[in-house]
């Protein structure tokens, strides 16, 4: 069903999700030019998750993201000009071009560094939350990972520790059913809900990974409960990766997945179906994106001093 909700909240979430999609589509457009000379793991199809979750977070709540992190970076307020400059390897990028797409971060907006090693920042959120509790703060800490991370030992170690020490962490799994090119059915023998529950951690699931409004509403209950109880909660949101694992293209012809399955998600995707809102917002977002691209293109290159600093 197409959600025809036109409330201010809906319009705002739609705008943010569409902004992320247009950024990603701009990257696809730019990619053949070699303005961006490093791998990109695009968020297209998964924008609603980031937008819905971040709508419930405060500026000082931290999100620990991963290499598929464009959506969360932008949804949490990461600056867009420095984002493009970073992707283009420029001195005025967020991290002077040393990070690129896979290591986005913006601490002032609570976006803590993205790692390109699957599951390697999950425990960071637990550690930051542990200290926050010692400091008696009211913040919460979100660790955002894909379904591939569920198989890592450190996931289980982190669940155990978070439950043992009762820390305010949202374990947020974006389940797109794929780890690079392998479906979950080839990788997992366990029941996630039972596993999470076995650590005495509440488990929630949202199927409508395209529906930013529903994600916002449902995750608000979860996030509020973490804030008040200062205990960990696990939330899995089912979603779909429209593009290939890494790069700007589609890879349905390679045989590891079926285009029909993605088409089912696309039929439900408001960014595709709600053409009215899409055209209403298009010019404004395009201008912002184009300005940011221009900022990136015009930005200076890093120099030898940048190469040797920050070790």
């Amino acid at each position: 069903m197409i959600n025809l909700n036109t409330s201010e909240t809906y319009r705002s979430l739609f705008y943010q999700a569409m902004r992320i999609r247009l950024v990603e589509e701009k990257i696809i457009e730019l990619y053949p030019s070699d303005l961006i000379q490093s791998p990109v793991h695009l968020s297209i199809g998964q924008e609603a998750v980031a937008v819905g979750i971040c709508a419930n977070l405060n500026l000082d709540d931290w999100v620990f993201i991963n290499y598929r992190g464009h959506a969360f970076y932008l949804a949490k307020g990461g600056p867009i000009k420095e984002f493009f400059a970073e992707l283009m390897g420029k001195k005025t990028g967020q991290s002077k071009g040393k990070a690129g797409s896979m290591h986005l971060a913006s601490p002032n907006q609570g976006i803590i560094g993205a790692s390109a090693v699957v599951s390697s920042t999950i425990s960071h959120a637990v550690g930051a939350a542990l200290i926050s509790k010692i400091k008696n703060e009211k913040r919460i800490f979100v660790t955002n990972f894909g379904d591939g991370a569920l198989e890592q030992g450190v996931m289980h170690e982190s669940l155990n520790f978070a439950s043992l020490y009762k820390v305010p962490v949202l374990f947020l799994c974006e389940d797109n059913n794929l780890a690079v090119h392998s479906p979950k059915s080839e990788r997992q023998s366990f029941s996630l809900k039972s596993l999470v529950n076995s650590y005495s951690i509440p488990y929630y699931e949202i199927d409508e990974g395209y529906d930013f409004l529903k994600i916002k509403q449902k995750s608000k209950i979860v996030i509020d409960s973490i804030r008040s109880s200062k205990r960990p909660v696990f939330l899995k949101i089912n979603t779909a990766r429209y593009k290939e694992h890494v790069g700007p293209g589609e890879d349905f012809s390679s045989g590891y997945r079926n285009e029909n399955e993605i088409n089912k998600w696309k039929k439900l995707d408001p960014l595709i179906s709600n053409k009215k809102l899409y055209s209403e917002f298009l010019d404004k977002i395009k201008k912002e994106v184009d300005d940011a691209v221009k900022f990136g293109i015009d930005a200076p290159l890093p120099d030898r001093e940048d190469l040797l600093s920050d070790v």
Partner: protein
Amino acid sequence: MSKTYKAALKEAMQEAMDKKPYSLIIGQGVTDFKGIFDTIVGFKDKYPNRIIESPLSEDSVAGICIGAALNGAYPINTHIRADFGLLIFNQLINLAAKYKYMFGGLFEIPSMYRMVIGRSWGQGAQHSQSLQSLMAHIPGLVVVMPADPSSIIESYRYAIQKHKGPVVMLEHRLLYELSFDDDKAKLSHPLFGSKLEKEGSDITIIATSVMVLEAKRALNHLEKNGISVELINLHSISHPDKEMICKSVEKTGKMLIVDTSWPEYGVCAEMNRIVNEYNPSVLKAPTKSMGMVSTPCPTAKALEDMYYPDVHDICNTVNKMVNGDDAVIDLPKKESMTDFYKHFKGPF
């Protein structure tokens, strides 16, 4: 006034807890009655929220340290065997060492990883390793092997109060119970330097950790036989005092490296690189390397005694390097360091 190695460690930990805001000690066994070989016994009662017993989850605990550091804490992560430190290599090498650089200076990870080299009493292949060169290889890590109490006090204080990145402290189990007299020699820098233990003219010995002690024993013996040794305690494995090393070898013309680990691709190799890149002509004779035999560590006492070099081997090598292969001096008897230094019996 004399002080034991472990008393210095306890003092350094006490100072960290009292003077560093949000310092915490986290690791397996930090709240138990042995308290990391008696370096933090009783701390849990004093600092109930900041002495954190951990599950057997080295990987996540190292990550928890990073997250804690990001949120303003100073975590000290303990490993009663350096071998267990291998379980944190993803976090240490992929994350902690790179966090500052990879994000262009947006973050810093001030943190300490205490790893104890377990060599003592039949510890075998997985409880005795000296892994300094693996870690010193990685840009972004500072790796230190303190060889005496004053080095501990100075370097831990600097690491905790002033340094903004991850520091690996490789402590040696054989040294824990030993008492040291006040030290006249000074480190050239607490984290990025070495210590000229003694001046001499015939040969430079560069030693690490417990081998500094063994070299000192050798040195007394060699002096009596008319050989003048200059001894450098390397201290910082990742950031040794290159100038001190090169100037010394330039003076003596000869270099023997005595390390606690395997010579290949390690401290021995690095010392040779430093001197050769400075000026190979300062060397008047081929250099020599001493370390563990290039096998995993055996458990049997008879094999272990052959595996590690001792005072006899050092004296023998130095004599040949200084006086020639055929020169004969009175050599100390072969005596395993565990027999000489060990003040305890049993598995630890």
